[in-house]
């Protein structure tokens, strides 16, 4: 679960990390009122989306009066932003954060994340924070310092004082950086985060440290023991209603912009199916991975989502029945969904593995017409051709 900037800052500030004063607004009027309440001499109005690199996409604007804040909010609210990190789908701005403008004399970078290869929690830090840090790091291997941390009971430990001195030469400020590092480590464990990033951590003219932007990702698998963070989930603006609904039905579903609905069990097989489809000149309308725990009614729900998508011209089912998810369970789900919907598009099915033959019988007995394919490459070719014919 990714947190919005304002949520991330609220979380970090609870662990003693200094952030600028701010408010969140969802309307232009509310933005103006917030600016009047804050009464700052300079404001930053920031689009709240779940991706970084907002500055170059125009998602961060500066204002010196409440009226200018309203103008900035009007330009952002309800509009879409595409940044280098949103992927191809733009993010719609549903809220803005109005924040006191803080002038940074210098900008540091501070992150904690998990290195999958070493299996460790690592702290990353740099004396030169800022937006293009990733590009700069590619050309300069010394730009980012790295400190592996040790998980000791409920504490993440490491030599923060020495690590802070490695990125900050002013000993008084380095002391402050070490405290921020320590607090960040505490916040990371206590919230079961997989990522916390402060970029930049500003050093002000007076030598104070302020986190100007923050990103936090919480481990979804740990939400069962982080009831206090679950409130962020309901507050977070869902990426897509269908996707959330599918989650509740044991399906990983992601809407794409093509014309071929895909029904596959297993994430790897689903990726491989999309590859074959693209090779055959087809474009997937969605990614779907049926989890092993999905029942036939869950599957019926997922199949229904695809039938209800007006862009879909053909449906490709590629199922390899495994130890838990057998082909016939999926066939039953398809049959239920077809009974519920009047929509008919060409259906191409490839069943293999556990109960493949029985699944074909289930569909036949339900009177469902489909083209059967022997292997997944053939299935992809037929589906791509069928979608092109339907569109013509």
């Amino acid at each position, binding site marked *: 679960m*990714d947190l919005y900037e304002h949520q991330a800052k609220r979380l970090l500030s609870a662990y003693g990390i200094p952030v600028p004063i701010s408010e969140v607004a969802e309307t232009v009027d509310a933005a103006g009122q917030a600016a009047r309440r804050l009464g700052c001499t300079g404001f930053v109005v920031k689009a709240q989306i*779940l*991706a*970084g690199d907002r500055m170059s996409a125009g998602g961060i604007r500066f204002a010196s009066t409440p009226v200018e804040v309203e103008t900035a909010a009007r330009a952002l609210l309800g509009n879409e932003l595409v940044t280098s*990190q*949103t*992927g*191809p789908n733009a993010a719609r701005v549903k809220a803005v954060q109005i924040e006191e403008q803080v002038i940074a004399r210098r900008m540091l970078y501070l*992150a904690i*994340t*998990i*290195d*999958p*290869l070493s*299996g*460790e*929690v690592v702290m*990353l830090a740099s004396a030169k924070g800022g937006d293009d840090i*990733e590009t700069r*790091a*590619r050309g300069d291997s010394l730009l980012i310092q*790295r400190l592996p941390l*040790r*998980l000791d009971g409920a504490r993440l430990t490491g030599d923060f004082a020495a690590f802070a001195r490695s990125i900050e030469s002013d000993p008084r400020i380095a002391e402050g950086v070490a405290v921020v590092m320590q607090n960040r480590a505490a916040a990371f*464990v206590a919230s*079961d985060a*997989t*990522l916390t*990033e402060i970029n930049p951590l500003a050093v002000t003219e007076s030598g104070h440290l302020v986190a100007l932007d923050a*990103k936090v990702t919480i*481990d*979804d*698998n*740990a939400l*069962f*023991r982080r009831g206090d963070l679950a409130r962020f989930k309901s507050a977070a603006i869902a990426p897509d209603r269908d996707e959330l609904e599918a989650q509740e039905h044991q399906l990983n579903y*992601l809407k*794409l912009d093509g014309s071929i609905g895909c029904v596959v*069990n*297993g*994430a*790897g*097989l689903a*990726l*491989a199916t*999309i*590859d*074959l489809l*693209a090779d055959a000149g087809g474009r997937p309308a969605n*990614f779907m991975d049926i989890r*092993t725990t999905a029942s036939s009614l869950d599957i019926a729900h997922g199949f229904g989502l695809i039938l209800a998508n007006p862009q879909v011209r053909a449906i490709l089912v590629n199922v*390899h029945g*495994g*130890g*838990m998810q057998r082909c016939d369970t999926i066939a039953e789900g398809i049959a239920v969904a077809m009974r519920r919907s009047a929509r008919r598009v060409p259906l191409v099915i490839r069943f*293999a*593995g556990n109960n493949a033959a029985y699944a074909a019988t289930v569909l036949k007995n339900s009177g469902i017409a489909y083209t059967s394919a022997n*292997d*997944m*490459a053939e299935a992809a070719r037929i589906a791509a051709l069928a979608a092109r014919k339907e569109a013509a």
Partner: protein
Amino acid sequence: MAILVTPETKVMCQGLTGRTATFHCGRMLSYGTRLVAGVVPGKGGRTHLDLPVYASVGEAKGATGASASLVFVPPQHAAAAMIEAIEAELELIVCVTERVPVLDMVRVRQALAGSKTRLVGPNSQGVLAPGLGQLGVMATVDARKGRIGIASRSASLTSEVVLQTTNAGLGQSTTVGVGGDPVHGLSLPEALELFLDDPDTDGIIVIGEIGGSEEEAVADVIQRRKPKKPVVALVAGRHAPPERRMGHAGALATRGAGSATQKIAALERAGVHIAHDASRVGQTMRDALS
């Protein structure tokens, strides 16, 4: 023979009495796996599936001589179960549990460091050695005893490739799912090395996908060891849509690995036979062997 398991390997199941564990352990027994005990805290002294149930891993090991454990414990308690098995010095742990919190896995990795235990998983379909035994939840209908080793990040693609290697008349020595979680035990390159050292494996298939950097690490192992056995790789996700990202730390921590194209290029440079798509893996291996 196979990797990770031998005909002598005796297996216990942590969490044996659960519904899913009961289902799969029944399948494992009928497949001929030497499953000899269950471990369920608070249920010591009972019998389940005609197997004795013990309260701890240590007791089960002492009483039965089991050296491997299959962990079927719910995610909240999975890390504690794995750490218990590591502390009891079992040789092999296979964890199939999905959705284990990642910080719990960091703790498990700390416990593994310097131990005598090898961990496969979590979120793994397990280890299958056709003719020898099954530790996991995979289908076995299409598996045949043979001389191809399969190391995979994807359970569903493993089933697919097992079918293709069987149809190609090759069969499998062992299949290993390293699991779908970011922090896990046995890695793809480690599994590859086990197969390289196994005299009963003639060819190795590595199934990777986008994300992480284990396929790049596989390429490094092959560059270093220059194996005589053919290695075939499939990397799924060439046409996956780019993902939304949060910040820079992920890319900075892993030094920017991850796309299917990058992985395929690294593997190709190392001399791996690339299966262009998932339908051609068996054929690619047969061609590489001839």
